[in-house]
């Protein structure tokens, strides 16, 4: 199951609390801020290792965030990769 999340606060937290084994989460729009390692609101560090975490590269770039400041476990996708995640996972939950 794929979760597409666009905000880093309660929306992300509610989503993370419901993730289970082999789920996939994609951070888009302002949610990419949660990828930053130092952010205290980042619940990314609490996720089990069998959950895949992606972030949309163009939203990172637009906000001046580079991968060096972010959790190592995060994988980066462009829009083509976003489409592939949607293709490879079912169902899709949009969290906004």
């Amino acid at each position, binding site marked *: *199951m794929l979760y597409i999340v666009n905000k880093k606060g309660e929306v992300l937290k*509610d989503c993370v*609390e419901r993730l289970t084994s082999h789920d996939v989460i994609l951070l888009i729009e302002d949610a990419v801020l949660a990828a930053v390692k130092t952010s205290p609101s980042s619940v990314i560090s609490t996720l089990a290792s069998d959950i895949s975490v992606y972030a949309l590269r163009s939203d990172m770039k637009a906000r001046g965030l580079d991968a060096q400041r972010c959790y190592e476990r995060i994988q980066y996708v462009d829009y083509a990769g976003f489409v592939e995640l949607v293709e490879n996972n*079912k*169902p*899709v*939950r*949009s*969290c*906004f």
Partner: protein
Amino acid sequence: MNLIGTLPLVLDVKTLFFIINKGLQGNVCGQEFLDIILMAAAFDQKVVVLFEGDGVNALLKNQQPECLNLKNMMPVLDTLPVYDINDVIVEKESMEVYGLTENELAIKAAVVSRSDIKKRLRSADHLFGF
């Protein structure tokens, strides 16, 4: 302009989950979301309505949005069985967050644990939120 569109005569039956994780009062989004749920039932789809997170408060008795000239959504929730929407579930953990017990709910809904809900969600074709 065609307001209805041309629909195929026979449509598939899909399992559609409608997730209410926000209150239904204060703005029109919840109300318009319920319209989608009723439309899904009219199309004879397999409809599941799930209340979780802050959305469990939408099931509280004695909501009085009329005091702010806002529309009360409870009559619509009451109508769900009329549309053959009977698969209404509430997340147990979210009820605990707000200290709610089953007899405080205004409509009939099955209290289900987060992990059991997740198993059901995985079998869905599409998930809707608002």
